[in-house]
């Protein structure tokens, strides 16, 4: 339990750093760190397959997408950075305060969730569920991936540039 709480605290700190940090590249790295902590939590919570997906796809592929997007845009000038950092401080200082207040409120209210436990029908095997119960969903996922690939190809098509 102490280990899980430590991981959760580190994960929230990384999320806060991601949001409040000035550099976009550092924010992307912070996001990958959040993913890494979630991966360890998933392993601890008996979900290894989802953890592997989270690490390879979220911490890996999505970070690459973000870094590529950032690298293809123009970096800010020194004057812009100074101007924006002053502006950012004004807008973002409220976040830690809101989080602290919300945390204190949640601690005081002490909501006790009561989830039903389906112990009589345990569904532990991911393969059986994916290929048995959710077979149709897999085709949906394949269609979504194809749609995403086609969408990205259309977005990067140079011919469309003139029409926009």
């Amino acid at each position: 339990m102490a280990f899980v709480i430590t991981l959760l605290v580190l994960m929230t700190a990384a999320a806060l750093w991601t949001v409040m940090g000035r550099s976009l590249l550092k924010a992307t790295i912070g996001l990958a760190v959040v993913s890494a902590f979630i991966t360890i939590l998933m392993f601890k919570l008996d979900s290894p397959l989802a953890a592997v997906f989270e690490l390879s796809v979220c911490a890996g592929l999505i970070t690459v997408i973000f870094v590529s997007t950032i690298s293809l845009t123009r970096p800010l000038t020194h004057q812009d950075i100074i101007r924006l950092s002053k502006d950012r401080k004004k807008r973002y200082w409220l976040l830690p305060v809101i989080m602290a207040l919300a945390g204190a409120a949640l601690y005081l209210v002490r909501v006790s969730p009561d989830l039903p436990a389906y112990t009589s029908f345990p569904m532990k095997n991911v393969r059986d569920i994916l290929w048995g119960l959710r077979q149709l969903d897999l085709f949906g996922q394949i269609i979504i991936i194809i749609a995403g690939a086609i969408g990205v190809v259309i977005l990067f098509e140079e011919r469309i540039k003139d029409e926009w």
Partner: protein
Amino acid sequence: MSGENLQLFSVIGFFVLMMSLAGLYCLVVTRSLIRAIIGLELLIKAVTLLIIAVGYVTGRTGLTQSLVITVIVIEVVVMAMAGGLTLRIYKHNGSLDVRLLKRLKG
């Protein structure tokens, strides 16, 4: 649900809410399009963790893992599309400021 599981779920739920709050705040306050996508990503991550926690405490890790895999697949597609759109908007406006999106017609 046993007492220990309930306690674990409460703790995870607390931090999930904190992370959702950070993501939501980022989404509302930011003026950079990339940072808005990062906020959205944080929200998705919080939901993912919550699904896994629910699976653990109810003893249905298989079902929740399959759901999380679906979430991750859709997340990647959304991020790829968002990245492509961001670059298009950058080429069009020369900036990633979301306020400039008001110029778009249609």
